[in-house]
């Protein structure tokens, strides 16, 4: 009956994603796959996206939205349309409603939709009741025979093939079924004009005349799921992780292949903090701007999604207002509120231009005044959480029409010193890590990542965004900050090993442009020597080099690392590049990342490179866009491996100098064969002289 296992796939879509492009993604599965497996596959599909980085199996769930029970008022609509004639009318009504919606457009439904909801009710059969309805209504988590619920909209007389059809309407408890009237709050925008597909999980149950098309075998297995109240009229159904995907599919869509992309199941994420906003279909996201009230609600209850009723669906007028409220009013409201109730001020910045102006103003202001410090808080694109400064409302921005990086500019009292206090109930998923939010007067040595001239296009506009978002505090060296989006590259020290001066010049110029510190080596031996001095994070290694090939150099470096336990043992003393003094110190704990530069057509080179210990390769000629992407990636990798030193290199340097300096004899004689200042002469296979002035921990083995 289900033969071609290879073709089994289910459409999934991220719920409430604010990306303009949020397409359903097909995930393959087979007979033994559970919801948990689907999650894993989904992650695979989205690997290397930011969404993937901030979510894991435990933070997401798969499910769908379903309407809550009706109040008694609504049931009149059902009665009117009961029976086969009534059902046809009901469907026609639906068609009329839906056909006025744009066929593929926004998620917004017409205002009238909620008002006239009762019309959308499907004929309620009158014969039987769902066996487990009462139980289901009573407890939030039950194993339930979904088919009974789903089929409840169908009169048995109309669908003789489905003897399990039930009649929920007869019983008050029935009204609490979350699966009733799915179509009325369907989050799916594409409605087929002839109502064949009204909603992903309801079509089979809604349209009696469609029954043949969607007829499916009766499945007697029950599904395990939990429900969660989203609003007065909507439930979220979340399937248990151990539920078999095949069962769910068969229950919801029937035979394999019946599900269309527009009927995707939703992937909920608890990292996504805006679950208190109802499903996207109810609000036109393009126009939607959160009101102050919503914002404050969010700020106050940022993590409590249960039973937060922001939108009363029974009150179509208010939701309509919210939908149409223009952004300007909103900001004005916000500001008024801020002025009247507290000294804080928030300003939303949604494009780069505004940001530049704001940062300029900030700079100017700073020179002149003793006024409260201002800072710009960079939030990643599509930031979902509220930012609560001392429990005051903060703008939340994910539905903003401009889908850019969002910046919140705020003003705080001088006495508010702690950045941690400032960030309040910031989403703890790391979505927007605020490394520094508050300028301190004595902050003279920013340890933030390398400054760059401009954001790379990859950084700001793609899912590729690294999770590390660094706010830019007003800085004592303000001239270095032309824009606040500068500090996107991690602070890493790069070594370019390349014998051709032209290629050196190209790579070097590129790194300079991005304010990444680098050194040059023109053969493998120089590369090894420079590496021994320590402080390097990343090596770009050409392979065919004079004196010592890149392959050999990589091998030697890996051998030395092994001997010294780099990347293996803890307790190796970390030392770091000190940007202030321009000196490289000894090894960091993390192994260096070596990236081979290979000819594009040489598979053998690539193999050899990886075998010799390179982590990755780039094909020559190096695509510079690719390179900037990779630098971000590798740099962040280093930061993750060795976050402490990456972040605190500065202070540790100072510490170690203070504590250990008596033992050291600093030998910095300049080697004229080298291109940088701090090269100590090194004789191959002997200790680097600079090694002597490092603080060698007892566990460290001499090379």
């Amino acid at each position: 009956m289900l033969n071609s296992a290879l073709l089994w796939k289910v459409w999934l879509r991220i719920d409430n994603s604010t990306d303009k492009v949020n397409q359903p993604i097909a995930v393959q599965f087979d007979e033994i796959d559970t919801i948990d497996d689907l999650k894993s596959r989904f992650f695979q599909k989205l690997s290397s996206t930011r969404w993937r980085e901030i979510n894991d199996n435990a933070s997401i769930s798969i499910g769908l939205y379903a309407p809550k029970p009706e109040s008694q008022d609504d049931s009149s609509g059902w009665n009117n349309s009961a029976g086969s004639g009534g059902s046809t009318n009901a469907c026609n009504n639906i068609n009329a409603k839906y056909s006025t919606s744009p066929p593929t457009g926004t998620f917004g439904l017409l205002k009238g939709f909620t008002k006239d909801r009762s019309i959308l009710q499907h004929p309620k059969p009158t014969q039987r009741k769902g066996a487990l309805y009462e139980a289901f209504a009573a407890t939030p988590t039950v194993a339930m025979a979904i088919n009974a619920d789903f089929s409840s909209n169908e009169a048995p007389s109309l669908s003789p093939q489905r003897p399990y059809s039930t009649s929920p309407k007869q019983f008050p408890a029935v009204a609490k079924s979350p699966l009733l009237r799915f179509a009325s709050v369907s989050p799916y925008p594409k409605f087929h004009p002839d109502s064949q597909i009204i909603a992903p999980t309801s079509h089979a149950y809604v349209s009696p005349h469609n029954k043949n098309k969607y007829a499916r075998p009766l499945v007697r297995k029950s599904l395990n799921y939990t429900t969660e109240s989203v609003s007065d009229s909507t439930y979220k159904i979340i399937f248990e992780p151990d539920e078999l995907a095949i069962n769910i599919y068969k229950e919801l869509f029937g035979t394999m292949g019946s599900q269309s992309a527009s009927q995707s199941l939703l992937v909920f994420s608890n990292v996504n903090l805006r679950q208190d906003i109802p499903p996207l279909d109810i609000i036109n996201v393009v126009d939607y701007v959160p009101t102050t009230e919503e914002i404050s609600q969010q700020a106050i209850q940022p993590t409590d999604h249960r039973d937060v009723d922001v939108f009363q669906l029974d009150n179509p007028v208010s939701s309509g207002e919210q939908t149409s409220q223009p952004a300007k009013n909103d900001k004005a409201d916000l500001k008024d509120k801020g002025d009247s109730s507290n000294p804080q001020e928030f300003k939303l910045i949604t494009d780069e231009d505004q940001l530049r102006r704001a940062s300029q103003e900030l700079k100017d202001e700073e020179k002149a005044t003793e006024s409260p410090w201002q800072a710009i808080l960079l939030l990643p694109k599509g930031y979902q959480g509220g930012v609560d400064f001392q429990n005051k409302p903060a703008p939340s921005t994910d539905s903003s029409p401009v889908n850019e990086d969002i910046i919140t500019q705020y003003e705080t009292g001088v006495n508010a010193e702690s950045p941690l206090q400032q960030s309040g109930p910031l989403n703890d998923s790391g979505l927007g890590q605020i490394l520094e939010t508050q300028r301190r007067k004595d902050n003279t040595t920013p340890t933030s990542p390398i400054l760059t001239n401009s954001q790379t296009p990859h950084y700001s506009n793609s899912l590729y965004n690294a999770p590390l978002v660094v706010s830019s505090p007003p800085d004592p060296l303000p001239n270095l900050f032309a824009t606040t989006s500068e500090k996107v590259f991690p602070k890493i020290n790069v070594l370019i090993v390349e014998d051709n001066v032209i290629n050196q010049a190209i790579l070097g110029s590129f790194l300079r442009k991005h304010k990444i510190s680098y050194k040059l080596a023109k053969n493998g031996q120089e590369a090894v020597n420079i590496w021994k001095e320590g402080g390097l994070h990343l090596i770009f290694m050409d392979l065919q080099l004079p004196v010592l090939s890149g392959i050999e150099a990589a091998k030697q470096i890996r051998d030395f690392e092994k001997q010294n336990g780099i990347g293996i043992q803890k307790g190796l003393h970390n030392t770091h590049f000190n940007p202030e003094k321009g000196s490289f110190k000894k090894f960091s704990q993390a192994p260096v990342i070596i990236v081979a530069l290979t000819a594009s057509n040489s598979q053998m080179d690539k193999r050899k490179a990886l075998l010799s210990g390179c982590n990755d390769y780039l094909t020559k000629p190096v695509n510079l866009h690719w390179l900037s992407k990779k630098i971000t990636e590798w740099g962040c990798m280093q930061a993750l491996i060795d976050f402490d030193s990456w972040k605190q290199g500065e202070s540790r340097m100072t510490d170690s100098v203070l504590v250990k300096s008596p033992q050291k004899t600093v030998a910095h004689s300049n080697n004229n064969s080298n291109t940088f200042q701090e090269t100590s002469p090194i004789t191959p296979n002997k200790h680097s002289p600079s090694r002597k002035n490092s603080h060698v921990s007892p566990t460290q083995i001499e090379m």
Partner: protein
Amino acid sequence: MSTIPSKIINWTILNEIISMDDDDSDFSKGLIIQFIDQAKTTFAQMQRQLDGQKNLTELDNLGHFLKGSSAALGLQRIAWVCERIQNLGRKMEHFFPNKVELVNTLSDKSIINGINIDEDDEEIMIQVDDKDDDSIYLISIAKALNQSRLEFKLARIELSKYYNTNL
């Protein structure tokens, strides 16, 4: 052996370099001038090897060296020929195509109007010794070197047009 690119310059690559002119207005032009010097020097070194030591490994390295910079600048036909020299030096390839054949692959043949494609050729002076396995590689490399001089000339014409100076 791959086929030689039909366009002299891969502008996608060169434009990336040119885009860095924002910071330093003559950056790309400086690189091109540097490359012209480098190519001349390398050609001369290759010629010396062919006339003197006939060391295939050295020729491989020289070919690789010039391949790197020409490819980085998008001068893809030169890079292709250099790769041939590199592979011939490694004895991974065993012949080099004829000049006419290669010239015919040019997408814009008008560029060769009015130039003597044989002008820069150096004579191939390889003693043919049946017992010397290297002979066929050396002869092919000599052919390739002449080809690379021609490609170099064509690239200079193209680049001179772009930068509006005589490079």
